[in-house]
C-alpha cells in the first residue's frame, strides 16, 4: 500500500485522521515485505508511529496525547507529516525505495541490512531460563542457514550469468548490452509484461505527482505555517526523552568497551615507541625540525581523511546502494560503472580485517576460559585439535 504522497498535494481540507495514521506508519516503517497480512492493527500502527516519531525527536507533545483510534487529531498528524518532510529528503527516499527496477540489482554495501527486517511484531518471549544447549542449537542452525544461503546465492549467480550471456545483444540500450532477468521475463511472459507495464505506468504517475508537488511546495509550507500558528501553544514541558531501547544501550556499552580497549592498546604501543624514538633523536640538530613539521602535517591530513570516513555524510565516498549487474567481457565496456574486480578487492580486504578481528576475539575468549578453568585444581583442559 503505497501512500500516494505526491498525489495528495497541497490540499486545503483537513484530512481524516485514520488515513494520516496509516500514511505515517508506512512512511516511517521500512518497506514491508509483500505480505500484507503482516500489517498490525490500526491502534498498533498508531502506537508505533508515536514511538517512532518520538525516537526521532518530534518536538510536540500533543502527538502523544492523541487517541489511537483515529477519531481526532488530523491537524497534529498533518504537522507531524510536514515535520518529517521538512527534515530530510523524504519524498526522494520513498520514491527511490519503491522504484521499479528493471535490472538485476546487487547492493555493494551492507547498509540496508542493518535496518532490522520483517514486521515489527513483538515476539512473545518466554521469560523462562533456557539451557545453554538450546543456544548451541540455535547457533548451529544459524550456521547451517548461512551455508544454505551461500549455496543458493552461487546458484543464483550462475543462472544470472547464463541469462546475461544468452541475451547478449538484445537490449536496445547499447551500454547495457543484454537483458536482465526481469526484462527477459517480460519478453517471455506477456502477462508478466503487462503487470510490469502497469507498475511502470504507476511509477510514472508517481513521478509526475512528485513534480507537481515540487511546483507547489512553497505554498504548502506557507500554509503549514498558518496551521502551526493556529494551534494552541503548548505548555512548557519537562525535558524527558525517550528511553533508549535496551538493545541500543547494550550497543553503546559494547562500543565503549571496544574503544577503551583500543585506546589502551594504542597507549601501550605509543609509549614504548615514543620512548625509543626520543632516545634516538635526542642528539639531533635543529635542521630536523623542518622535516618533523612536514611529517606532522602529512599525518594530520591522512588522519582527517580517515575521520571523514565515519563522520556524518562522509560515507558517500564509497559505493553504496544497489547496482545493476551488467555482463561485459573484460575491457570492452569502458563506460561508467563500478568494476567487479574493484569491489572484490575491497571486500577481500574487509574480509581479512574481519577475520582477524574474529580470531582475536576468539583467542581472547579462549584465554579467559583457560584462565578461569585453569585456576581450579585437579582439572586438565583438553582442547580440540587445532584450537
Amino acid at each position: 500500500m503505497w501512500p500516494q504522497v505526491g498525489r495528495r498535494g497541497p490540499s486545503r481540507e483537513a484530512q481524516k485522521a485514520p488515513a494520516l495514521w496509516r500514511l505515517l506508519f508506512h512512511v516511517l516503517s521500512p518497506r514491508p515485505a509483500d505480505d500484507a497480512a503482516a500489517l498490525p492493527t490500526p491502534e498498533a500502527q498508531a502506537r508505533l508511529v508515536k514511538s517512532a516519531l518520538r525516537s526521532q525527536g518530534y518536538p510536540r507533545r500533543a502527538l502523544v496525547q492523541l487517541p489511537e483510534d483515529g477519531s481526532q487529531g488530523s491537524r497534529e498528524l498533518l504537522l507531524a507529516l510536514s515535520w518529517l518532510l521538512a527534515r530530510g529528503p523524504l519524498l526522494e527516499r520513498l520514491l527511490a525505495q519503491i522504484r521499479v527496477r528493471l535490472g538485476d540489482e546487487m547492493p555493494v554495501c551492507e547498509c540496508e541490512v542493518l535496518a532490522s527486517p520483517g514486521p515489527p511484531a513483538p515476539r512473545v518471549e518466554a521469560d523462562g531460563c533456557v539451557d545453554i544447549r538450546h543456544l548451541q542449537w540455535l547457533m548451529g542452525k544459524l550456521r547451517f542457514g548461512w551455508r544454505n544461503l551461500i549455496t543458493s546465492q552461487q546458484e543464483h549467480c550462475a543462472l544470472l550469468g547464463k541469462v546475461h550471456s544468452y541475451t547478449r545483444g538484445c537490449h536496445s540500450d547499447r551500454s547495457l548490452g543484454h537483458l536482465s532477468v526481469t526484462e527477459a521475463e517480460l519478453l517471455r511472459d506477456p502477462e508478466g509484461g503487462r503487470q510490469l507495464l502497469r507498475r511502470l505506468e504507476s511509477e510514472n504517475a508517481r513521478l509526475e505527482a512528485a513534480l507537481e508537488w515540487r511546483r507547489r511546495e512553497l505554498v504548502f509550507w506557507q500554509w503549514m505555517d498558518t496551521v502551526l500558528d493556529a494551534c494552541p501553544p503548548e505548555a512548557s514541558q519537562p525535558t524527558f526523552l525517550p528511553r533508549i531501547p535496551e538493545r541500543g544501550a547494550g550497543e553503546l556499552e559494547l562500543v565503549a568497551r571496544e574503544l577503551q580497549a583500543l585506546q589502551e592498546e594504542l597507549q601501550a604501543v605509543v609509549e614504548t615507541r615514543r620512548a625509543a624514538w626520543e632516545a634516538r633523536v635526542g642528539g639531533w640538530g635543529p635542521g630536523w625540525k623542518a622535516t618533523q613539521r612536514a611529517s606532522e602535517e602529512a599525518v594530520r591530513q591522512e588522519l582527517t581523511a580517515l575521520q571523514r570516513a565515519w563522520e556524518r555524510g562522509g560515507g558517500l565516498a564509497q559505493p553504496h546502494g544497489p547496482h545493476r549487474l551488467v555482463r561485459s567481457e573484460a575491457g570492452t565496456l569502458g563506460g561508467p560503472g563500478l568494476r567487479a574486480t574493484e569491489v572484490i578487492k575491497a571486500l577481500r580486504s574487509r574480509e581479512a580485517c574481519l577475520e582477524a578481528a574474529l580470531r582475536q576475539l576468539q583467542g581472547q575468549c579462549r584465554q579467559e576460559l583457560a584462565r578461569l578453568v585453569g585456576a581450579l585444581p585437579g582439572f586438565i583442559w583438553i582442547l580440540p585439535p587445532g584450537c
Partner: protein
Amino acid sequence: MLPAGCSRRLLAELRDALDACAERQRQLERSLRVSRRLLRVWEPAETPALEPTPGPDTNEEARPPARTPSPQELKELELLTQALEKAVRVRKGLSKAGGRDEAPSRKSRSIVSPATTASVPPRASGQAGRRASETKPPRGVRQTTVPAKGLPELRLLSVGDQTCKARGAQAAKPEPGLRDQEMAPSAAPQAPEAFTLKQKGLWAQLSSTETGDSMDATTTAKTQFLRKMQSGWPSSRLCAAEVEAEVGRLRKACSLLRQRMGEELTADPVDWMQEYHCLLTLEGLQAIAGQCLHRLQELRAAVMEHQLAPWPEGRLPSAPSSCGGGADSIWSPQLLLYSSTQELQTLASLRLRVAMLDEQIHLEKVLMAELLPLVSTQEPLGPPWLALCRAVHSLLCEGAFRLARRAGRDCRAGLAERGAGGSLRGTEALPAVQGGEGLRTRRGHPPGRGSACFVPLPNSSIFPAGLESPRGIIGAQ
C-alpha cells in the same frame, strides 16, 4: 540453565539473526524461482539439474495453455533442428516469405537451445530477422555467419531505428508456442521502452528541481517551519535515533581505527622518516580514539539522564539509512560490470561472507559479554558448571565457519569445518559428546571433537560421579 535476563537477551539476539537469515533466503528463493523458470524455457535439456523444487513451480506452469511442458519440448527439439535446417536452406534462397515456411519459422523462433549445435541460435535470429523484415521494410539484418564464440547471440536490428529496435526485441524473444498470442506481446515490449525513456526524463526533471532557484525559498520556508515546531523544545539533539546513529558511527570509527593501527603496526619502516611517520600516526590514532571515547561517554551520560519516559514501547525498526547512493543515482541506476560468472559468484559470496563475519563478530561480543561472567561467577565445580564451560567454549572459541569452496585452501579450512561440524552437531537433539561420526564435512575430514573436555584427575575429590561419567569427560570420539 542460564538466568532469565541473560536467556532473554541471548535468545533475542539469536532469533533476530535467524530471522534475518531466513528473510534473505526467502528473497533469494524468489529470485531463483524466476530465473530457473526462465532458463528452463531456454534449456529444456537441462531441466533436471535446474529444478530441485518442482512443487511450487508446477502451479505456475499450468497457467497458459500455449506453454508446452518440458518432455514435449524435448521431443520437439528434434523437429526443431530439422525445421531450422530446412529454414536455413530456404532462407539462403532469399525468397519472400512463403506461407509454407511460416509454421516452421515460427517454431524455429520458439526455442533457442545452446545444448544443440551452436549454429542453431544464429539461424534462429536470422529467422527472426527475416520475420521482422516481412512486417516492415527490410532492414539490415543478415545473420549468415556463425558467431565465432559459438554462444547463442541474438543480434538486434540496426541501431538507428527506435521502433525497429522494439520490434527487434520482440523478434528475438525465444519463448515457446505463443502462436495464438503473437499479436498481444507485440505491443508489450515496445511500451516498456517508451516508459523507461519517459521515466528517465521524469527522474531527471525531479533531480533538477532540487537545485533550482525556487528551491531556496522553499528551503527557507522549511527551516522556518522547523524552527517554529521546535520552539517549545529546549534540547533538540538527543533523540534516540540520533544516539543510535552516532553510536553506529563510533562503532565504525573504532573498527577503522583498529584497522589502521594494524596496518601501521605491521608496516616495516625502511628509514627513520617512515618510522617517525608511523609513530605520529599511532599517536594521532590514539588521540582520535580518545575523542571518540569521550563523545561516547557524553552520550552515555545523556542516555542515563533521560531514562524516564512515559512513552509507549514499540519496536518500529529504525528508518533506513541514507543509503540511496547519492542524488545522482536516483535517476540513472549505477552499473556494476562483471566479466565472467566466476567473478560474479566470487563477488556475491564475498559479500555474504563479510555480512556473515560481521554478524558473527557481533554475536561473539554479545555472547562474551553475557556468558563469560557466568562462568566466573558460578564457582561450584559440579557437573552443570563443567557442561557450561564446555558449551561456552564451543560457542565462543570455535566455529570459524568457512566457505570451503576456494581452491588451494589448506587444511585450515578442513579444520575450521571441524569446528563447524562441532557446532553443526548441535543441530541434532543434543550436542552429544559421543557420536561425532554422523557428519562428514565437504572435505571429507571427520568432524573432530567439537567440544573441549575435562579430565579430572582420579584422586580429585571433585570427580563427578554419576551424570558426567568418563565417556562424557574424556570425549574421545
